[in-house]
């Protein structure tokens, strides 16, 4: 069995967890094993929508102390689950929570962890993982000795295809034993950013600005453009962030986030090697820059050589037209 931890946010299952479940389904099919979706939380949590995503079984690991996320509480629930059900693999989405939790679970099990995978293949009856290293300047492929193997899957990489219509999954509710004093740290509060912007790692389209924007106020041009496009987010180069024009959570590149959107539009970004590392796995790259020699044009599928202050407002109008069609 391949088990997949399903992360919820505000009671909704995250898209990146469903992507991990879809990938588990494809690999489990090749290995002729089943799949399980695993939810952790307080008792009586819903499984709405998950039945349609094709897991063979749904496990709800429950305890009142698991109402809020704590790495120690959630790791205990998953470790016990692995002990009882013996999956061959345990997948997580490589989200903030998945990256926090998966190593804790793996260490508790003495298991190897494949972090932030972008490809998983079946080889000699086991799983082979591929993941970017050096921020995408190289790709490492490897197998893992331990059973189970624990893996986190990069969001926005694995396709969400329609699951086969099978029998409704069995839902198993298990009560978790959480000894007093086990949980020494927990999330007390989630502080939302004022704007409800989607994170660059989860966006389908990322529109990033760099030094060419000349000042913080001009990120408004990119926000206007992003507002037109569904699931679009605004990113930034390191120099824009270090100049204080936009928050670090928007930074794409080696000391920021690595993104793989369907479209990455680089505006006024020359394309330093650290920046290219963070976005070169995007499916389509477009760039607007006034310097025809800018390195960004070497990786761009579509480039516009021109003044961004002239091109971007016009691009916005043109996109409005084509999107209205």
């Amino acid at each position, binding site marked *: 069995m391949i088990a997949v931890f399903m992360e919820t946010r505000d009671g909704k299952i995250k898209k990146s967890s469903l992507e991990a479940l879809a990938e588990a389904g494809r690999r489990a099919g090749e290995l002729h094993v089943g799949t399980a979706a695993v939810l952790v939380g307080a008792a009586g949590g819903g499984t709405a929508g998950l039945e349609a995503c094709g897991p063979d079984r749904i496990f709800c690991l429950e305890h009142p102390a698991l109402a809020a996320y704590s790495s120690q509480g959630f790791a205990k629930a998953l470790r016990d689950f692995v002990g009882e059900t013996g999956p061959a693999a345990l997948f997580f989405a490589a989200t903030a929570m998945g990256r926090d939790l998966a190593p804790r679970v793996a260490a508790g099990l003495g298991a190897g962890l*494949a972090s932030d995978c972008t490809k998983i293949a079946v080889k000699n009856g086991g799983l082979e993982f591929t993941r970017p290293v050096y921020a995408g300047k190289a790709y490492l*492929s490897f197998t893992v000795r331990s059973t189970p193997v624990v893996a986190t899957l990069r969001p926005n990489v694995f396709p969400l295809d329609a699951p086969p219509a099978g029998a409704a999954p069995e839902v198993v509710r298990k009560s978790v034993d959480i000894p007093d004093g086990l949980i020494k740290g927990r999330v007390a509060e989630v502080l939302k950013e004022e704007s409800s912007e989607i994170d660059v790692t989860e966006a389908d389209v990322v529109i990033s600005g760099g030094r060419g924007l000349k000042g913080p106020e001009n990120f408004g041009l990119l926000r206007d453009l992003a507002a037109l496009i569904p699931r679009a987010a605004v990113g930034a180069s390191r120099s824009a962030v270090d100049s204080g024009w936009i928050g670090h959570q928007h930074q794409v590149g080696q000391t920021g986030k690595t993104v793989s959107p369907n479209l990455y539009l680089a505006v006024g970004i020359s394309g330093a090697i650290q920046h290219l590392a963070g976005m070169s796995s995007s499916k389509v790259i477009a760039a607007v820059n006034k310097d*025809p020699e800018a390195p960004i044009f070497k990786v761009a599928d*579509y480039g516009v050589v021109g003044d961004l202050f002239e091109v971007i407002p016009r691009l916005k109008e043109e996109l409005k037209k084509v999107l209205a069609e």
Partner: protein
Amino acid sequence: MNILVFVKRVPDTESRIRIRHETNSIIEDGLNFAASTYDEFAVEEALRLKEAKGGTVRVVCVGRDEALPVLRKCLAMGADEAFLVKDEAPETYDGLRTARVIARAVETKFAGADLLLFGKQAVGTDNGQVPSMVAELLGLPQANVVTRLEIEGNAGTALREIEGAAEKVVFSLPAVVSAQKGLNEPRYETLKGIMAAKKKEIPVIKLEDLGLAAGDLEPQIVITGLDVPPERKAGKILQGDPAETARGLAALLHNEAKVV
């Protein structure tokens, strides 16, 4: 406060990575090495906590002798002591192996630490596994990818970055905290600090002295390949009148690439 900071020597972020395929390893000749970027935020945070609350800052690196300059830099920034846990193994890309070495080192050589600080991930291996694994192996709470840290008595509060929001994590000490960019602005070494650091001895701890269990040093990861990604092909370049190029780009993105 008794603070431990863990640092790693890595190729700097400007490095162009070349591969030696016979050994599935990177070619180190010609690369510049430095402390991993995020580790510098961890060192700085430790120094600030010490300045505010007193105590000691000890910096530990697992690695080869080549990592000594990285430790020396931490001393020059103001760390009290630095230690090298000597590990001759080439890069294993295996977080659990490193975490076991660190956890055993903490238990046998650095017992009584209040706070274990790390960078959120090493630049290069990009695993981000070790802090959480060490926390689990030592039964400590954790706060990862932290952009703000406050310690009050025996408790800590951290803000950690998540998608589109921040989580406020409350925890008791001792604890593991990993630093994200934005936590602070690392200081430069002073000339006085550099001179003082030169005189300090950096004790070397042997792996054999840590009481590791058989198999602890065996990586779980079995490397089957290491490659640079295929080069992207240069694409279509539009030049000229901004109205024309904007229209052209919109059409290409919508009709040809079908991404908007």
